[in-house]
């Protein structure tokens, strides 16, 4: 894999440019606010999403207080509880995870990692962020709208989402649907950028099979998002029509609290198919960038080539393709034709194979490596444990008949928080600790980072692992209080209280991260250009943080893949992707790898 097809590099003319032709921003406003620099847009995306993330975290505190100590907090009644879970879920999945992993990391890392100067459509890229911000404002506005935000659950299933038995049906549901429509319009502009930049903007020598897995993950997820989000877009438009103009796309003839409504002939299941045709790929839209990033964190901090790179790339593509034919595994007990169960259970369990390959390759990268237990590495290890746990419980829920007793119980809540809540969040933290020095020029505090890691990793595991057993017991999800049932032992409510206390602690520990993030901008240790001694291009920029245009006069040329760590016979333990073969220092290496 480390072979260098030199002919290919030599053929291409260098791309030296006059400084003026880069269209540098001329005013404070175009530099920091209406910026077309992907790196600035990335920071805008990330900061906005972090704000939403902290709001969503606060909402989860309130809902956990109600579940752990039902009746103690008078202001959290059933309606408020449903509004809390709905907004928490939708915020985290769409407005935090998707926004950070694609809008945040995608914008920062794609151009730098493929050696481009910027995204190929900078203006559309800027619009993408402002659409996202508008979507966020519309979403938050629903907290102040009459009737409050929608409490339909993040799945927004009709008919109840637009009927009066559900909180927020006055205006909250309308704002939610409009916000999603705006978000998707904005994402499409960003997503096209990510895809076209990877396909067309790579520098000399950066073949597809030399790209870091981070880029592969974000690229594949962007393609998937461009195919999956339209399903949510049309579903949102159709439900909006049902709500505002009395159409019946999803509305059969029905009774609303004793009164017969004018709807008739629509299908609630149609919405579920559309929603999950988006919703399942969405899981992998969040997961694939995390897979890619974690591969790079592990390789860099274990000082070892990622094991089975080509298999990793094919696994990403296989998961991406398969994820479009598994959606109805969310619908085994929805009343759809039960024969679908055979097909969707089979496809769902097949997807476990490429996913397992990725896990094996991560741990085989650790094997016989030189593992530096830095903060990013700790988060990567925490991710593997959490993801494997959540992935394995997915084999229960994907296997149709096993899902029947478990679906709609707390088992499902525990499963998806492990696999697509905590796991990607751990990667996001690890990635921020990892790339922060490139973005700011300074390191984040390591001791605070480790403290943050241990509380977050152990705390979330101790929250969500026992939660599965509430589901096995038969506690349904989306109950604002567990209530009494003959088969709930008293200890089940104790478990709920314990989970709440832990959730408060883990949530509060995120302030450590926030403090570290802000404090280190000025007070962190100077990082230099490549503090982790990493190979990929973003660490080889002439200046740190990289200025507009990234590379100064000349874009880098690439001679090898991104994983040349500890190559035998080379005098240092890494070879940057842009180091020409003749410059590689040969000879014996000092025993200690340099970095502590």
């Amino acid at each position, binding site marked *: *894999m*480390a072979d260098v097809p030199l002919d290919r590099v030599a053929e291409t003319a260098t791309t030296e440019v006059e400084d003026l032709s880069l269209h540098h921003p001329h005013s404070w406003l175009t530099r920091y606010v209406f910026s077309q620099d992907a790196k600035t847009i990335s920071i805008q995306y990330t900061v906005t999403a972090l704000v939403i993330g902290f709001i969503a975290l606060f909402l989860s505190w309130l809902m956990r207080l109600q579940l752990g100590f039902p009746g103690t907090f008078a202001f959290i009644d*059933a309606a408020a509880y*449903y509004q809390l879970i709905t907004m928490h879920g939708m915020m985290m999945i769409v407005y935090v995870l998707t926004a950070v992993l694609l809008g945040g990391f995608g914008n920062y890392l794609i151009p730098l990692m493929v050696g481009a100067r910027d995204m190929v459509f900078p203006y559309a890229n800027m619009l993408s962020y402002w659409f996202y911000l508008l979507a966020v404002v519309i979403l938050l506005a629903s907290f102040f709208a009459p009737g409050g935000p929608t409490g339909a*659950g993040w799945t927004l*299933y009709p*008919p*109840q989402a637009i009927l009066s*038995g*559900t909180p927020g049906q006055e205006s909250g549901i309308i704002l939610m649907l409009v916000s999603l429509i705006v978000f998707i319009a904005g994402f499409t502009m960003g997503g096209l950028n990510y895809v076209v930049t990877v396909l067309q903007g790579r520098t000399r020598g950066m073949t597809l099979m030399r790209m870091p897995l981070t880029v592969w993950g974000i690229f594949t997820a962007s393609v998937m998002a461009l195919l999956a989000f339209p399903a949510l877009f049309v579903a949102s438009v159709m439900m909006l029509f049902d709500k505002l103009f009395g159409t019946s796309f999803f509305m059969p*003839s029905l*009774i609303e*609290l004793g009164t*017969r409504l004018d709807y008739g*002939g*629509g299908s609630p*299941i149609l919405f579920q198919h559309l929603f999950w045709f988006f919703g399942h790929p969405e899981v992998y839209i969040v997961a694939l960038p995390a897979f890619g990033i974690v591969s790079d964190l592990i390789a860099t901090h*274990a*000082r*070892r*080539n990622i094991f*089975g*790179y080509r*298999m990793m790339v094919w696994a990403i593509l296989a998961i991406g393709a398969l994820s479009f034919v598994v959606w109805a595994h969310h619908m085994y*007990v*929805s*009343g759809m034709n*039960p024969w679908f169960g055979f097909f969707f*259970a089979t496809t769902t369990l097949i997807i476990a*194979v490429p996913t397992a*390959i990725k896990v094996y390759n991560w741990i085989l990268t*650790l094997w*016989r490596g030189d*593992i*530096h*237990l830095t903060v990013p590495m700790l988060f990567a*290890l925490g991710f593997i*444990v959490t993801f*494997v746990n959540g992935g*394995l419980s997915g*084999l*229960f829920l994907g*296997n149709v*008949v096993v899902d029947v007793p478990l*679906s*709609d119980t707390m088992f499902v809540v525990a499963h998806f928080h492990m696999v697509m809540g905590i796991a990607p969040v751990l990667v996001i933290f690890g990635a921020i600790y990892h790339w922060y020095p490139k973005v700011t020029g300074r390191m984040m505090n390591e001791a605070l980072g480790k403290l943050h890691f241990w509380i977050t990793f152990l705390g979330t595991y101790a929250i969500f*692992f*026992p939660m599965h057993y*509430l589901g*096995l*017991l*038969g506690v349904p999800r*989306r109950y604002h209080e567990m209530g009494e049932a003959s*088969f709930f*032992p008293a200890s*089940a409510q104790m478990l709920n209280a314990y989970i709440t206390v832990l959730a408060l602690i883990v949530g509060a520990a995120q302030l450590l991260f926030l403090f570290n993030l802000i404090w280190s901008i000025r007070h962190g240790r100077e990082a230099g250009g490549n503090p982790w001694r990493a190979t990929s291009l973003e660490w080889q920029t002439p200046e740190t943080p990289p200025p507009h245009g990234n590379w100064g006069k000349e874009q880098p040329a690439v001679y090898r893949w991104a994983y040349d760590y500890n*190559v*035998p016979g080379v005098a240092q333990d890494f070879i940057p992707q842009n180091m020409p073969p003749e410059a590689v220092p040969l000879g014996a290496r000092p*025993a*200690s790898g340099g970095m502590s």
Partner: protein
Amino acid sequence: MYVALALFIIAIGSVVFHLLSPWWWTPIASNWSYIDHTITITFWITGLVFVAVVLFMAWCVWRYRHRPQQAEVLYEPENKRLEWWLTVGTAIGVAAMLAPGLYVWRQFITVPPDADEVEIVAQQWQWSYRLPGPDGRLGATAIRHISDDNPLGLDPDDPRGADDIMVQGGELHLPIGRPVKAVLRSLDVLHDFYVPEFRAKMDLIPGMVTYFWLTPTRTGTFEVLCAEMCGVGHAFMRGFVVVAEESDYRAWLEQQQPARPTAQRTVPVMAER
């Protein structure tokens, strides 16, 4: 060192928690013990994989942690043989879970021909039931027929519905040992009929009829919970199923009134049309 220890404790601790957990499924009261068996198989396979992966990680983190006198790092981009073995092994494990799962699913969706029918109707936020009466057939229904006198929307023209027995706001009674097909209907939003002891559950959907079947295997009174979010009253949408011996069931059935005494049948029907 302590990282490896933490990983080790997570692997072992999770198994210990699983074995000692007081929170486990309720004793079964239907024929679906097959489902419990498939869950058990899945626990075994996934548990082994989880412990193996985390322990291997713990060992790697301990054995290959950074030290001043570092052993040679292995530069090995690929190992086709190992990768294929792992892929094939995983495929076998997946098949070992999928095959019994699909086998039981086939049983789950195949209703025995001799099953009794009972209709379960949901609306915000209560359960109603309808039994077919002496003719063994349920009458047709439609939302447009619903009125204060006809809360479940029976078609007044359908003679099969005349002897149907309605249970509103009460308990569903089932005889033990006889397969029953539950036909599910919702009048407003999505609901889900969930009795943890039966293991089976299914959504109720306005505008269509869904079903599941089971054979009760244990007498007793079991709680019904709504398991599909249906608005603010969701957590309070409870009910009871009473599984009784055949004779007790008969005694209960005797006391129920048919939906529509025959004399009442004709006149209001035409008016409504």
